[in-house]
Every structure is written in structure tokens, then in C-alpha cells.
């Protein structure tokens, strides 16, 4: 065995400790904003996409001269998707780096943890993707949310039910996570209130290999609609295996996320055809800059962004707009300006309002998309649709 060299390790550790002190000295003239994101761990894919979208927006903003002559910069740090790390990052952002505003994080858990810290230090925090209802239900004065809460992701789908589908029975399968539970709960409550019979409602552990047993059970119950909430690639496995089992409801509808990822089209391939999903955004929306964002992102990073990307992109613009209107770059003035936000972004209109239990929550319409000819098309609401919906979907064996 090699002879141990503990001195080398000690030297390395000391070196690393010295390096941590360096950023405290190097604060330039640019305005820095703290952004915690999961860049490692299971959520890394989304953290990466958001990071790219933030940076893209920032390049555009700075190319146009930044805000009041100041360039914007992001301090993006990896939380690994762990709340205690996210907490550490934001404690550091606020108390050591003295950033007057925090933007970002990805999951509900981490967004919630960050919101708690921001509220404690009275520093405004813009939530970009964390969807759990509770984040904007605490009556916190420093927490503003760009994306709609999970319970409202389905608004477009409800509207589609009332006007077109008029289902009598529904089967609900959801991922056993915060997002899956709260989205499916909203669907169940809607169905109970509107006389739709929920024949099955079960949660599953994300990452399963084989969903055929439960899908066969769904098949034996013959529901009109199969509604699924999957965050990730389970969406494509559910569709592929439904096709294999020849499970034929009038429509498969996803609750967003997994069923709207570009990877869904690739992995589910022909099994994705005619699958619908609730979504917050599609590249076909008529908002200014939406299509440009999609095209530029695709060109720059060689992959298609989903709605998480555009949320981050829009958040950067909300940030720039807020800073432009803020009297000074202090937390108080930024908070005042953020609260008065009323602007249009590539993601849609952004305005923070309070209603019911929600405070400082952006309210927006959600859409329904459908895969037609292996492309995501916006099919509902009718105005702004890019293609006509196909409902009921043809049976698997009747397709060519």
C-alpha cells in the first residue's frame, strides 16, 4: 500500500478554506441576485434547464444595457434538491452576500424552505416553479409566486370537461409526491363536486419499471378518462404500457409536468399520440416573446425547453422590470416594486394578487395540450388553440 500523506490533505483543506473567503472580497459593480437550484441529484435536469434559461434571459437584458446602467448577474448555487442545503445557501445569500432579493429553486420542498428563510429576514423571494399550494398560503409578505399553485394547474382541463368531454367516470393515478398529491387532490375534489365518478385513485412511487398490473386494473374498470400525474419519465412508461394493454379510455389526460416534457414524445413515441395534458405554457401561446424564447433556446442548447424553462426565463424579466421600477436596490424598495408588478412576459401576464387563502400569487389561465402527429399542440381553450382536439381518441388497435 502507498504511504499515507496526511500533510497533503491538510494543505488541500486549508487551501479550500482560504478560497471560501475570497468571494466576500470580490463584489463588483454589477447587481447580483442569489439563485439556488438543484444542479445535482434527481432534479438536476430541471435545475440545469432553468439555469440555462436564466442565463439566456440575463444575456438579453444585459445586451440591452441592463437595468439603469447596472449589469445583472446571477449567483447560481447547487442545493442538490435538499431543503437544508437550500436553507444554508439562502442564509448565506442574505446575511453574508447581502443580496436584497432571492429568485428560484425548483421543488416545492426547497421553495418552501427558502420562503421561510426569506420571510424571516424580510427579503423578497420570487418563487418560480415550486407548485405546492402551501407556499403562498402562509400569509407571508415577502414571498411572491410566478407559477400558479398546483391545485389550479387543472383549470383548463376542468373547462374542457365541462364543454367537451363531459366524463361520467374517471381513474386517477398520481405520483406519491407533494406535486402529485396536491394536483390529484384538486382533481378528485372537482370530480366529487361535479358528479364524475372516481372509480380508482391511487398513488405510486416514482420510477417504477412496470405499471401494467395497475393499468390492467384500470382497464377492468372501464373509465371514460384516465388522469395521470407524473413528474418525470413515468409518464411515457404509463402511456407505452397502456398501449401494450390496449387500454382505451376516451382520453388519457396528464396533470402537467411529465406529460409535457419533450422527452415524453421521444420515449413514449407512438404511444404518446392523442394524449392530452394540463399545461401552463406551450410554444404556441400568443404571448410576446414566447416563440422566440422557444426557438432561441432550442438553437442555443440543442434541446427543447418545457414550461419550467420559460418560467425561469420570465422570472428574469420580472426581476429586471422590478429593479427598473424600484426606487433603490434595497430589500424594502425591491419588495414594494415587486408587489406592484403588472407586466407581460413570454410565460404570460404576471401580476401578484391575493385571494382566498393565497397571498401574492400570480393568477393565470392554464391550457390543455394534446399530442397530434407527435407534436404538442394547444387544443384548449378554443381561442388560442393551435389545432383542433381529437376526442374521443381512437382505440389503439384502430390506429394504423
Amino acid at each position, binding site marked *: 500500500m502507498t504511504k499515507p500523506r496526511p500533510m497533503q490533505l491538510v494543505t488541500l483543506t486549508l487551501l*479550500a478554506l482560504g478560497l471560501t473567503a475570497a468571494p466576500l472580497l470580490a463584489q463588483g459593480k454589477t447587481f447580483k441576485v442569489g439563485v439556488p437550484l438543484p444542479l445535482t441529484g434527481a432534479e438536476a435536469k430541471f435545475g440545469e434547464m432553468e439555469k440555462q434559461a436564466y442565463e439566456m434571459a440575463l444575456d438579453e437584458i444585459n445586451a440591452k444595457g441592463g437595468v439603469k446602467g447596472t449589469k445583472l448577474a446571477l449567483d447560481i448555487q447547487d442545493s442538490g434538491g435538499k*431543503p437544508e442545503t437550500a436553507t444554508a445557501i439562502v*442564509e448565506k445569500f442574505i446575511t453574508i452576500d447581502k443580496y436584497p432579493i432571492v429568485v428560484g429553486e425548483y421543488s416545492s420542498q426547497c421553495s418552501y424552505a427558502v420562503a421561510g428563510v426569506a420571510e424571516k429576514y424580510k427579503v423578497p423571494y420570487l418563487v418560480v416553479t415550486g407548485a405546492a399550494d402551501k407556499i403562498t398560503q402562509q400569509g407571508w409578505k415577502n414571498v411572491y409566486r410566478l407559477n400558479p399553485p398546483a391545485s389550479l394547474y387543472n383549470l383548463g382541463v376542468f373547462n374542457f370537461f365541462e364543454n367537451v368531454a363531459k366524463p361520467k367516470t374517471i381513474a386517477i393515478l398520481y405520483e*406519491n*409526491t407533494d406535486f402529485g398529491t396536491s394536483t390529484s387532490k384538486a382533481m378528485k375534489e372537482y370530480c366529487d363536486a361535479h358528479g364524475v365518478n372516481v372509480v380508482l385513485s391511487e398513488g405510486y412511487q416514482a420510477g417504477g419499471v412496470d405499471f401494467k398490473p395497475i393499468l390492467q386494473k384500470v382497464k377492468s374498470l372501464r373509465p371514460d378518462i384516465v388522469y395521470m400525474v407524473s413528474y418525470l419519465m413515468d409518464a411515457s412508461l404509463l402511456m407505452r404500457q397502456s398501449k401494450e394493454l390496449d387500454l382505451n379510455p376516451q382520453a388519457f389526460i396528464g396533470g402537467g409536468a411529465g406529460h409535457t416534457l419533450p422527452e415524453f414524445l421521444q420515449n413514449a413515441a407512438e404511444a404518446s399520440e392523442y394524449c392530452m395534458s394540463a399545461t401552463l405554457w406551450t410554444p404556441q401561446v400568443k404571448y410576446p416573446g414566447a416563440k422566440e424564447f422557444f426557438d432561441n433556446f432550442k438553437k442555443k442548447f440543442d434541446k427543447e425547453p418545457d414550461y419550467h424553462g420559460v418560467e425561469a426565463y420570465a422570472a428574469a424579466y420580472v426581476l429586471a422590470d422590478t429593479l427598473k421600477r424600484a426606487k433603490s436596490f434595497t430589500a424594502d424598495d425591491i419588495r414594494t416594486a415587486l408587489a406592484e408588478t403588472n407586466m407581460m412576459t413570454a410565460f404570460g401576464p404576471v401580476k401578484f394578487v391575493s385571494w382566498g387563502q393565497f397571498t401574492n400569487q400570480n393568477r393565470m389561465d392554464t391550457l390543455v395540450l394534446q399530442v397530434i402527429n407527435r407534436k404538442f399542440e394547444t387544443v384548449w381553450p378554443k381561442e388560442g388553440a393551435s389545432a383542433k382536439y381529437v376526442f374521443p381518441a381512437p382505440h389503439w388497435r384502430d390506429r394504423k
Partner: protein
Amino acid sequence: MSRKSLIGLLPVAAVLLIPLLTQSPYLLHMFILSLLWIVLGQSWNLLGGYTGQISYGHAAFFGVGAYTTGIMVKSGQSPSTAWWGLLLGGLAAAVVAAFIGWVCFRLRGSYFSLSVLALSEVLRLVAVNWNRLTNGAEGILFIPAFTQKTYYYYIVFALAAVNLGVIRWVMRSKPGYYFLAIREDQDCAESLGIDTTKYKLLSLLISAFFTGAAGAFYMNYMGFIDPGIVFSIPDISIMMILVTMLGGAATKWGPAVGAILFILVSEIFRVWVGSGHLLFFGVLIIAIIIYFPNGIVGTLTDRWARKRRLQGAEAAA
């Protein structure tokens, strides 16, 4: 008091003074996490290091402690009474441990290790699915009782100190010697008339109690838990083993050294290496195992002892 124990008290005194030196919430957060991991490491060390029963599922006890506290608050207690969770959470974890011990201690080696892991996974799934009790995947949240980090610092410090004191006391009394005997040779211990199952269980109960109390502290401190966080195998169970063994299993200060090293080094890596930080961390783990086979404290003490012996031999010659 001997010179040696005075030297031992020095780091303790230094740690007590930290909040007087810095009020930075970020630094205090790091120190609080370090102390929390000291408790976890020491608890695992009692069972794993001293008694030789390797558990891959201590997250089970951490989670039970955290959830006991969370459920207390959820059912209407105020967050300040949730501090009773430190006691109740620990007791609940010990009850679960008694069951696990009863199932597993009739078997040896890998079987015990893996069945704790299995039970911790089952508990995680129960926490996900028993919505009414645990709030399921949405987790439990409340606004923590204090906003000042100093309070948390001293609470977790006290927990770590009590934990260390109890373990020292146990290890100096009869059960402690039995634990070591069981680790070294269970058959031998048994033939000497030691009721090995009973003493393994005792070690497990103490270990689980403090792990549960640490979980309860986590709930009180973070204000939010969900099943994926507190029952995590890689982030809790495996981390506990790493902290203890890389610091030095079956040594007094090993878990403390391991915990501080882990929290601080991983934070430094995270800030400075960016998205590759876990890769470096993995390499560091491998390097420590190769260069310090008995952990940092264990290997250094061995080496010093050997050097002193050599010097003694030279002086004699």
C-alpha cells in the same frame, strides 16, 4: 482532574463560545448541522463502532423522531411544546428499535444490517401513504418557535453533550465491556455467559433514542419534513455510517471529527467546485478509506501510539 481530560474539555469549551464570536446565521447554520451530525454519528458509533452491529437503516429512527414531533404539532400542540418531541421522539424511536431488535438480533452480520434498511423503507412508505396521520408526501410544516439561531445552537449542543456523556458512561460501565466483547467475538462473549441478544438490544435502544431525538430536533429546527427527507437512505442512513467511520469508528472523538469534516468540506466543495462537488466528495471518501483505514482519529491515534512505542524502545536501548 488529569491533564488528558482537561485537553479533552478544550474543544468543548471552544464550541460553547462560538455563538459569542459569530452571529452570522449562515455560519451558525453550518455549526448547528455539524452538531446535529455529531449526535447522529455518535449514536451510530455506539451500535456500529463499539458493539459491531452495522445498521444501514438508522434513518428509520431519525424519521420516527421527526414525525413524532411533527404529528404533535399537527394535532394542535404549539411549536414551543414541540420541544417535548426531543424526549417523545426519542422514546418512539426506541420503541421501533425494540421491535427491530427483536426481529433482527436473532440473526447476525449482514442480515441485521439489511433488515434495518428494509424496515426503514417500509416506514418511509407508511409515512407517504398514511395521509391522515402524516400528511403524506406533502409533509408537515410549522413555523419554528425561535428565530434566533443561538437557541438552536445551544439546544443541539446540549443534546450532543448529553449524548457523548451517556455513551462515555455506558462504555465505562459493565455493559460497555460486554458491547466490545460482542463486537470482537460474539461466540466467545456468549460462552462467557453474556446474554448477547440483551446487550445488543440495549446498545440499539440507546442509539435509536438519540437518533430519534436528533430527528425531533431537525423537525423543530427546519420547520418542515417530508418522508423523502427524513427517511432517506443515502442522505441519512449512509451519511451516518460515513461520518462515523471516516472520522474513526469506536473512538471518542471520531464521529465529531467526521461530522465537522463532512458538513464543512461538503459545503466548501459545493460552493467552490460547482456541479462537480459530489464527484470530489466521492473521491475524498475513497481517499480517506485508503489512507486512513480506521478513520481519521483512529488511524492517527494508532500512528502516534506506534511512534511513542518506538521512541520508548529507542530510549530503552
